């Protein structure tokens, strides 16, 4: 009988997120200059890019944690993989929403089949399917194994998704290139703070949700023991 360890009393990531998120919002609205052609609509970019990078990171974590589970067979890795999938789906949903909000005034359309949009949408579908799979299996070991297989199978699809999405005509702005960054220094500073804020939020949510998964598992184990004792 293992009880889940109590989380640390002072989660650093949560504190960092609590400080950084308001600062990031403040910088976006009051510090970053207004872009000349797009105007105030461009400000959604800071949030959009930060969410997109964190979402992609989250899917990577889920695949690595999936491998961790298949190798170690430790429920902790399953909790990590499940949490990363959940956070990745939520963040990708926000990426698609913020992108659409920007695309409507700038591109004059909510949606277009651009490489990056295509990639984000396909990843959203793959990992949303992971969530459906998780909800359809009751046995914890089986659920963990299947989820790990799906998280890995989804992530190895990423190179093909990139290659196929390249066939789409791109109208998406490329702000950060390998040789230059097309941004004012004040914009770069805002972007960096936004990125740090969203990542800190991801870490904090990851910790909390992971703990919740483990507590659920511990509760289920107690439940099963009580059932056996009663029967």
């Amino acid at each position, binding site marked *: 009988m293992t009880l889940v360890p109590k989380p640390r009393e002072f989660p650093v990531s949560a504190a960092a997120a609590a400080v950084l998120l308001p600062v990031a919002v403040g910088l976006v609205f009051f510090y970053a200059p207004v872009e000349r052609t797009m105007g105030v609509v461009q400000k959604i970019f800071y949030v959009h890019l930060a969410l997109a990078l964190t979402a992609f990171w989250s899917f990577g974590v889920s695949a690595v944690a999936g491998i961790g589970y*298949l190798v170690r067979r430790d429920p902790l890795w399953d909790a990590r993989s499940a949490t990363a999938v959940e956070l990745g789906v939520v963040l990708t949903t926000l990426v698609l929403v913020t992108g659409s909000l920007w695309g409507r005034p700038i591109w004059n359309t909510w949606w277009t089949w651009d490489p990056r949009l*295509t990639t984000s949408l*396909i990843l959203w*579908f*793959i990992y*949303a*399917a992971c969530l*459906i*799979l998780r909800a*359809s*299996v*009751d046995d914890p*070991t*089986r659920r963990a*194994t*299947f989820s*790990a*297989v*799906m998280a*890995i*199978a*989804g992530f*190895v*699809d990423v*190179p*093909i*998704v990139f*290659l*196929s*999405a390249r*066939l789409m005509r791109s109208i998406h702005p490329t702000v950060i290139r390998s040789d230059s960054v097309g941004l004012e220094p004040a914009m770069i500073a805002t972007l960096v703070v936004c990125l740090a804020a969203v990542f800190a939020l991801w870490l904090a949510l990851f910790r909390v949700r992971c703990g919740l998964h483990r507590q659920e598992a511990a509760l289920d184990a107690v439940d099963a023991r009580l059932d056996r004792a009663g029967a």
Partner: protein
Amino acid sequence: MNALRPVWVVFAKDVRIELRRRESLASMAFFGALVLVILSLAVGGGRRVAPETGAGILWVAVLFASVLGLGRVFAREKEDGCVSALLVSPLSPGALFAAKALVNFALMAAAEVVLVPLFYVLFGRGLAGNPLPLLPVIVLVNGGFSAAGTLLSAVAAGTRRNEVLLPILLYPLLLPVIVLAVRATGGVLAGGGLAAAAEHLSTLAAFCVIYAAAGALLFPFAVREG
């Protein structure tokens, strides 16, 4: 040569079952034909379609039909616990994966023998060019579908909702394949010949290789759990 023998034995067994009962192939061909007829009516009944649209219609019919056969390939072993028997046999899980993927490949190919000619009957008007360059595209899509599909059918078969879950899990992974297959097929149907398909073949082949490798590595975990 000896390593291939178990693969052949399981493959031959499944083909024999299929030849005796013809349940998978009949439902796949019938459903695929139905999808083609529905789409023919949906685009206005006998109207000319653009090559790219035609390519999309062909692949929708083939992929929707194929998932029916795919579900059966594995679900059949779940009945009466045949999987456990296969797992305690000297057969390696990797060989089981290869055999099941081959069975699915053969079923898909057999269904396509019916569906591709029917597609030309319903939509052939206005499509230019020799259909022969479609062959490598079809082979690679079948390969990718079978590899990814066999892995996920082992996962779906272990859940309560096999039939519903399999397409939900599989189609998101296949979205890039659909993009590539439609581009390549559209080029061929527009009269571009093999050159039109060639640029997409390497990416489709990469998909096959990735899922053949991922399947061989991950299938043992999924099938033992089922």
